[in-house]
């Protein structure tokens, strides 16, 4: 226990938490900015091949982080097509990988939330003169509980993810070590108590972030 306390007073812990939030926050932002509009669109319009797109998105929710990590790694590797960017083993690479993992979750669950809004509501909004984008935004606000859940699920998926960030970040101390990779490290060392303690920290961080997200959802009502 005293070991835990010493561990927790380490300034590195703060830095690890900060990097975790920065990477996951940025990835979530990217995935949201891309995934919410696309999910909304897919939920709103009917088109040929919709079923296939749905299937692809749903399957994307099951992309193994390790495979995504490998893919990003091979792309960013110095012998890969994007090697010149020099992103490998930097937080940027981790953001890219997590954004890819988060995207299908955000888009797929937003789609199902938007599709759950009564068609009559959409017709009403259309008849009041809303443009395509305004319609989408209005329906999104009506579906905000489901859209928030989509973002929450994606956040949970990537903040707890380790396979991809380990591969493309390298778990470099002081550089690219986040909470999950630190947990894995302690686990491999047999330091189970420390690993569990960091797990608790991670869960606390996720809890705090969700409090904020639900606040935001509440705000949207008063628009």
């Amino acid at each position, binding site marked *: 226990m005293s070991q835990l306390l010493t561990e927790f007073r380490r300034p590195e812990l703060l830095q690890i938490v900060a990097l975790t939030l920065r990477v996951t926050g940025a990835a979530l932002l990217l995935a949201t900015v891309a995934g919410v509009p696309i999910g909304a669109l897919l939920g709103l319009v009917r088109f040929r091949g919709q079923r296939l797109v749905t299937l692809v998105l749903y399957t994307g929710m099951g992309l193994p982080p390790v495979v995504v990590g490998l893919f990003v790694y091979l792309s960013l590797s110095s012998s890969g097509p994007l090697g010149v960017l020099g992103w490998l083993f930097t937080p940027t690479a981790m953001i890219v990988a997590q954004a890819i993992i988060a995207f299908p979750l955000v888009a797929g669950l937003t789609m199902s939330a938007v599709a759950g809004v009564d068609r009559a509501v959409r017709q009403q909004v259309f008849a009041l003169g809303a443009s395509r984008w305004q319609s989408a935004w209005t329906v999104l606000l009506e579906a905000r509980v489901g859209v928030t859940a989509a973002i929450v699920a994606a956040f949970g998926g990537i903040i707890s993810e380790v396979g991809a960030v380990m591969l493309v970040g*390298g778990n470099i*101390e002081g550089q690219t070590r986040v909470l999950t990779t630190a947990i894995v*490290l302690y*686990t*491999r*060392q*047999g330091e*189970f108590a420390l690993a569990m303690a960091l797990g608790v920290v991670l869960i606390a961080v996720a809890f705090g972030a969700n409090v904020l997200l639900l606040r935001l959802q509440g705000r949207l009502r008063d628009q």
Partner: protein
Amino acid sequence: LAAAATAAAQAPVKPGVLRLATTTSTDDSGLLRAILPAFEKLCACRVDVIAVGTGQALEIGRRGDADVVLTHAYQSELKFIAEHHARERFDVMYNDFVVVGPAADPAKIASRRSAREAFAAIAAAKAPFASRGDNSGTETAEMAIWASADLKPAGAWYRSLGQGMGETLIVANEQRAYTLSDRGTWLAMRDKLPNLRLLLGGRSIAENPDFALRNRYGVMAVDPRVHPGVNAEAARKFVEWLVSPETQRVIAAFGMTRFGQPLFYPDSDRWKASQVPAR
């Protein structure tokens, strides 16, 4: 009563199964896959290999979740015995560590004769160095080398990864960094590491100029008096079999066809004893 309760909480012995907790290097090199079928036939049992980090392997043993552990962290192994989780440790085999680095060799270590000197040169040049940083046997060896050179590595050039050997080599390859690797993993992966060269350690263990780079593997059967749930019978048989000259001979031959040199060198007392008359 409390003791009875503890005993009752123990998992039942699974006859016919031997749980072997070991480090990833023994498994990833393919050694276990090559030698274990013989033992499975011999004892008419199945061997479940749990390949994890060294620390984790020992911890699994400490909790009685494995019947036998095969690791390469001598000091930690002694501690394991001091804590009564096993009665004895047996030498099994050894191989060696090598220092690899970028082909350009900015710290000019290729000409050094010992790891201590090489590490000192790397630190002086502040050339990138990738460390396992995971408390593994390899990292323990690395730390011992830094200590012998009176150095405490720190700074942007020193990257502590907290990953396995393979991953660390991958990072070193990308970042053109030096690293300490066990020879087996290096040999197995060097085709995929175009930016790295072996700079210190020679072409085989016989040519390794630095005895400090030796990597010793030991085996321990978990003590059934402390962990009644373990399959002590099979564990005992396994240890006996592993150090037997016949098995040791197979270990010595492993890797010859693929790499032209063995990956592991037999090191058990019985093997050494069996070699004496031959000399």
